[in-house]
């Protein structure tokens, strides 16, 4: 599980740190951290429906912000709990393009153990950075 929830950052909200050796890995880990804030047992989410995200941004960290926001959007708009299967990020003419395939299913109150709802991804202390071993991000979620 390449993410951890932080005890000493935020009080009414929830902060996490996620990491990966590649950019794609850190995006995937951060997406799971958002979902794991809402659902305790991610393994109980059956991967029966597919949604594709196509996003572009001129800043890499805002691309991550928009990517994470999609999980919150589908949770409300279609009650879909999604996990990332594949993600590709490319830079062309100073614009970052993301294409992701996500899979999941509709929330089932009996099988999916809820923690708390995520209202939004915040930009407070939002950070995506390159490290010696890959990439790392810190995110505060509005609860």
């Amino acid at each position: 599980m390449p993410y951890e929830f932080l005890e000493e950052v935020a009080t009414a909200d929830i902060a996490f740190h996620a990491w990966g050796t590649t950019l794609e890995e850190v995006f995937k880990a951060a997406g799971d951290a958002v979902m794991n804030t809402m659902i305790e047992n991610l393994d109980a989410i059956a991967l029966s429906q597919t949604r594709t995200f196509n996003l572009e941004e001129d800043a890499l960290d805002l691309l991550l912000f928009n990517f994470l926001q999609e999980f919150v959007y589908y949770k409300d708009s279609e009650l879909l709990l999604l996990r990332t299967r594949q993600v590709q990020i490319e830079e062309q003419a100073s614009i970052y393009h993301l294409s992701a395939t996500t899979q999941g299913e509709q929330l089932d109150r009996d099988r999916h153990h809820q923690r708390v709802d995520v209202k939004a991804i915040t930009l407070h202390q939002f950070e995506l950075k390159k490290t010696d071993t890959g990439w790392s991000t810190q995110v505060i979620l509005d609860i």
Partner: protein
Amino acid sequence: MAPIEVLKQVSDVIWEIPTSYKAGMRVPARLYGTEKLIRELDDAVYDQITNVATLPGITKYALCMPDGHFGYGFPIGGVAAMDIEQGGVISPGGIGFDINCGMRLVTTNLTYKDVKPHLKELVDKLYDRVPAGVGSTGFVKLARNDFRKVVEQGAQWCINNGYGWEDDLEFMEEQGCIKGADASKISEKAIDRGVHQIGTLGSGNHYLEIQVAKRENVFDNVLAKQMGITKSDQVVIMFHCGSRGFGHQVATDYLLRFLKVMDSKYGIKILDRELACAPFDSPEGQAYFAAMKCGINMSFANRQVILHRIREVFSQVFGQSAEDLGMQLVYDVSHNTAKLEKHFVDGKERSLLVHRKGATRAFAPEMADLPERYKETGQPVIIGGSMETGSYLLTGVATGDQTFYSTAHGSGRSMSRTKARKMWRGDVLQKQMQQRGIYVRSTSYSGLAEEAGGAYKDVDEVIEAAELAGISQRVAKLTPIGNIKG
């Protein structure tokens, strides 16, 4: 521990951070709280409130209420009044994603003795009828165009469609419909997220609670009576929720939009991207103001539909109409908003955009927008405490002008959710609370653990600080007997 030595003590409960604390501060910051509360304050609040003090147009002080704690952009408990004639800005980070998150208090003519035998049935039925938790959906099925009407008309739409009483509107800020909401300024995504969510509580610290006003907890009988609390051990209902995914998306949309233009178009530099803003009178600022008002109205509508469901449940359980049960709305308060208000600053009337993020408007007696019933008492202020310790009903006072008539909004958290879920277990807490006479239902045991009373500040101390500072006055403390946690 917070660096209290940087503070200049103004009074027992007001503490000032001078402009020399950080480059770019346009005004000092003022923290409200007893010495104990100030000593326990998150360090992050110092940083956040002084960032707020750098925003263009900020007037007098960047303020933090006694329940203040770590937020994003503004701290929770943050209040900032922007002078719109002096380049004042509007910032989603000064309102919160949950636009018009707020509280309602409803009376009954029942006493604890009447309710106790039916408590479990009431809570179970409310739990079924008022959906809560992750991504929940409500019973009001709307076409997208009808939802656009809801966000422009607010609680008035609900009354027109049979969800409530005509005179409910009188007992809400803005009479349940803020003027100037424009649905052409909201995204399709915002509609996608909100269209199925009217009549739902949400999650986190949102709740619906059955409470008792014990005789010994009524501090002012005259004020309490005018607010509908007339007998010993009277049962009331309090609930806390907001504009759901709709408001969250509106705020997110404009946060990103402001980031793109703030510096390049308006030359505004900020210390935290969550404080992204635009001049109030710019096209972007005006668009957000009109969209944010849609969030305000969605929230009024959401709380109105929930009130309707609560009345249905009580009526069903007691076999009497809600009218006969005296289920009057005391008031509906907003604690995540920015509103254009007139205030006197240094003897001169100014038009200020007052941002309140986790802070409640607390208008003094005789102020405009108050219903006739509260002209003499001042505005009822509803403070949601933790589910274990109790909540408060307060009123606005004349000396509240020091905070642009704003006060606390809750107990204020003192511990992170992540830490709280390690300290308590939801199922154990539920049993312990039941032994103490509080029947609680929740969609989530870990969510319940995160809301343990021990994760909050001492609500009595917070309210005492607000009273000592002269920003609100106690009317009654209300103790929980039944609770639904989102």
